[in-house]
């Protein structure tokens, strides 16, 4: 049931764009995106809801394809501060009865 993230790692130059994917074998109710820097707690970025409603970070966007059961996180004109590990957390049903299931993460390194 753990979502699969791709790529596992990516190295970019500052200013380049990145796409991180999250795929599930089960139908999803919502997808939550977090960024974690080394030795720190995960920080919330974005939530994608079934039906298309979206909330989140002003400089990062995301999509949620319910039919394909996948979500993608888009980072445009990447900055050095974007470096870290990105996790998607998936929710199978609404109502808060089940916890988030996180993927293994995508390591993003931004070089100057």
């Amino acid at each position, binding site marked *: 049931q753990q979502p699969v993230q791709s790529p596992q790692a990516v190295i970019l130059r500052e200013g380049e764009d990145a796409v991180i994917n999250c795929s599930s074998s089960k139908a999803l*109710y919502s997808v939550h995106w977090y960024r974690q820097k080394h030795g720190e707690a*995960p920080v919330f970025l974005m939530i994608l809801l079934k039906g298309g409603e979206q909330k989140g970070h002003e400089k990062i966007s995301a999509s949620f394809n319910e039919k394909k059961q996948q979500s993608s996180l888009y980072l445009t004109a990447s900055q050095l501060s974007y470096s870290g590990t990105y996790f998607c*957390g998936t929710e199978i049903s609404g109502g*808060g009865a089940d*916890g*988030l*299931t*996180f993927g*293994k*993460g995508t390591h993003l390194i931004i070089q100057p």
Partner: protein
Amino acid sequence: EAGVAQSPRYKIIEKRQSVAFWCNPISGHATLYWYQQILGQGPKLLIQFQNNGVVDDSQLPKDRFSAERLKGVDSTLKIQPAKLEDSAVYLCASSFGVLGGGPKETQYFGPGTRLLVL
């Protein structure tokens, strides 16, 4: 606004010893989560509380792990006895969200407790 507080930040113990972690969620947050994050992995949910009741503990190894949230605020996670494979970061998170049909509210994570079992 104060964030999620956890203590201790680091703990080193020998296998078969006991250890306890403490978490104080953001004021007003009804839901509290404990996650285990093994090096190189995403957080894995151990237990979820709604106020002082358990909502989900399906992934909690109940033969050695226990958790409580007696007054619906602070929470304690205990491991007794610890095994080598329990070495991980234990993250506490909280959210305002209440049960009732909507999606999970944003979860705010604490800094975590890094446990090393020797």
